């Protein structure tokens, strides 16, 4: 009974392959492998450049020649199905690769009146059209597409965050080399409900007492926003901070009127997070002249009105938060241990701001005359929306030929547009979307040859390694059972 290894050997011997020929094949394989190992240690660009050089081209031709010679010499090839695709496949791949290479395109341009560019980039502002193919730096034009491309829209798609829990981070100031600069370091706090977590960088600890996925602030009983008006004589009047409310003042003689309660104020970071309003107040003097004053709530300070009037917007601090599924933003109740004190606070987020910050006043230091170091910037805890992960980069592009739109596609990573002998790829990853798109352009010359080669090689290998032995096994078994 023949051993399996022998079957293979007899096939190749029967094919007329002489021992030197077989050795040549083995040496070629070893050389290719060696070149590949060397190539793995080089920068990718060097290998590509090496193969596109004249010497590289010669080597590739030699390899292709070897395969052709093998095919021509082999009489069995026609009779033995598994050998033909195994040699023809790589040959087609090589031919396709040569045709599609830089050198191949150069040759086509010089001798065959070809006009294709093998590889380049395009830069298209949103709403514009272009057919220019540019170099890697997007500075020099190296060719033109046989059609125009119009960019309708470029955008980034994000995933919905799987875990909607907001992150808790600490912003810790630290000294840089330059005493004039302060570096703020941001560190993640690994928090879990009900547990105490350490706060890195500032030697504090935080316990998350409660976390509400959707929440709104809760104020104390009877607490309401007020406008406090303090006259020049010290007389204090308070009215509700509602549009239309007004009060008359004696010293100076004026009427103070709340014109508007401004919601959704664009915030400065130094204001507490639960503040989102300001009051637009009109002070009308006895002679009819009116002045508009904006009063921002800030504990302890007063807006200075005209003629010595002082205005104060008293906005009560929420005493907590309650669940509100429609709020869309969370609230977190924390107990912070820092600088020998315990701080019990609510971090209540607002819908149009992706974070809420709590400043931690540290232990007070004696200030000298020329002190003013990083220690004076208090650290803060921030409850922040988790960063969304990119799902895809997309460009909505349209092919325009002779003024007519002929094709349109939204391309993304892994989904290029194939048109007019070119593949066009999404390539703007570093730029904010909505302004322009950078596209990668590659020629498809020789591609079908390469893919045909892939298919043949795969077919041949699967046939020889799987199908043939499986068939032999099954017929052997069938013979044994039947015979």
């Amino acid at each position, binding site marked *: 009974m023949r*051993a*399996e*290894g022998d079957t293979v050997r007899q096939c190749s011997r029967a094919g007329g392959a002489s021992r030197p020929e077989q050795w040549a094949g083995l040496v070629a*394989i070893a050389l*290719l*492998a060696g070149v590949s190992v060397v*190539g793995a240690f080089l920068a990718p660009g060097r290998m590509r450049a090496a193969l596109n050089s004249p010497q590289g081209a010669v080597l590739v031709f030699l390899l292709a020649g070897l395969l052709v010679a093998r095919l021509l010499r082999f009489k069995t090839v026609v009779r033995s199905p598994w050998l033909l695709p195994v040699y023809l496949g790589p040959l087609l791949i090589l031919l396709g690769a040569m045709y599609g290479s830089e050198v191949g395109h150069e040759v086509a341009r010089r001798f065959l009146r070809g006009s294709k560019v093998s*590889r380049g980039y395009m830069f298209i502002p949103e709403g514009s059209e272009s057919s220019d193919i540019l170099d890697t730096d997007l500075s020099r034009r190296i060719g033109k597409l046989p059609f125009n491309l119009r960019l309708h829209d470029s955008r980034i798609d994000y995933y919905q965050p799987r875990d909607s829990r907001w992150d808790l981070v600490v912003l810790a100031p630290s000294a840089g080399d330059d005493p004039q600069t302060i570096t703020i370091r941001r560190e993640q706090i690994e928090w879990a409900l009900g547990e105490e977590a350490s706060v890195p960088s500032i030697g504090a600890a935080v316990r998350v007492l409660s976390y509400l996925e959707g929440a709104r602030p809760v104020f104390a009983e009877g607490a309401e926003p007020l406008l406090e008006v303090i006259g020049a004589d010290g007389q204090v009047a308070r009215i509700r901070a509602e549009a239309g409310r007004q009060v008359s003042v004696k010293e100076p003689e004026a009427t103070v009127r709340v014109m508007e309660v401004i919601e959704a104020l664009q915030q400065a970071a130094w204001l507490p997070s639960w503040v989102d309003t300001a009051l637009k107040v009109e002070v009308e003097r006895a002679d009819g002249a009116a002045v508009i004053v904006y009063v921002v709530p800030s504990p302890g300070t007063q807006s200075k009105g005209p003629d010595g009037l002082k205005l104060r917007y008293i906005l009560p601090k929420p005493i907590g938060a309650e669940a509100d599924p429609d709020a869309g933003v969370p609230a977190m109740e924390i107990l912070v241990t820092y600088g020998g004190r315990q701080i019990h606070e609510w971090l209540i987020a607002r819908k149009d701001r992706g974070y809420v910050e709590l400043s931690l006043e540290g232990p007070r230091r004696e200030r000298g005359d020329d002190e003013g170091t990083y220690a004076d910037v208090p650290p803060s805890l921030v409850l922040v929306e988790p960063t969304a992960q990119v799902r895809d*980069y997309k460009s909505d592009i349209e092919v325009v030929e002779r003024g007519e739109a002929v094709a349109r596609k939204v391309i993304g990573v892994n989904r290029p547009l194939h048109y007019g002998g070119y593949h066009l790829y999404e390539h703007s990853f570093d730029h904010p979307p909505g302004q322009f798109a950078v596209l990668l352009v590659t020629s498809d010359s020789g591609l079908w040859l390469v893919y045909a080669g892939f298919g043949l090689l795969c077919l041949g290998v699967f046939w020889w390694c799987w199908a043939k032995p499986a068939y032999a096994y099954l017929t052997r078994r069938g013979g044994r059972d039947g015979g």
Partner: protein
Amino acid sequence: MAVNLTVLSALMYGAMLAYLAAFAALVSGRRRLGIGSYLCGFGLALTAFVMRWFQVGHVPLQNLFEVFLCLGMLSYPLSAFCRRFLRAGGAAMDALVGFILLFPAAFVFDAQPWALPPLLRSWLFGPHVGAYVLAYVILFKASVQALRALFSGGEPGASRRASYELGTYRLIRLGFPLLTLGLLLGAVWGKMAWGDYWNWDPKELWGLVMWLLYVGYFQFRAMFGPRYLRINCAVAVAGSVVIVITLLWVNLAVIFAGLHSYAS
């Protein structure tokens, strides 16, 4: 080394224990207990793999953690197939390899699930990595057989050596088409994603080296058959070395700058 207490980890630790128990039982001659334990381990590993699939919402072959989990899971079915149809491999060694493959997944690699980045959102992702993963396991098995052939000493071991060598050959013949498929699917995917089917990336080049090594193995064996047993087996073992380089070194070492940097 980090021990973490999730259901997924528990399943993996359970599978590892079952594989180890199977190895011990099989080595000490308790075949039924060994195979039963091995099957148990497979059940646990398969559950872990499916759980991970549901957890991340896509084929779990995106990072080294998931790849090694898959490798560990495939241990039993592959072992059964090879023993039955190729008459190659032993259950004890296979169970031990299963344990070894699960070890880095359970204790070393980061298991953080991550939504697929844009580059991996392709229908080719599963087949490309899947073909390679399966090929690696099979070729690794072949190397083990080759080592057994190399270390079956002396004259009396000659027929055992020959049968191990034949087993090595059959296993390489089983895994090579998957290697080819993985390489070519990678090229097609490269064209879809990066604009070129070959980018001279270190991972691609080491993949080519691996492929050429086995082509060379077949060429040599076609020329001389099992006559130069030591050379055949040495090449098979060298294949494993290249697998390790391609799978781990390229991803983890800074000297190989390229497109394949894993999100791990």
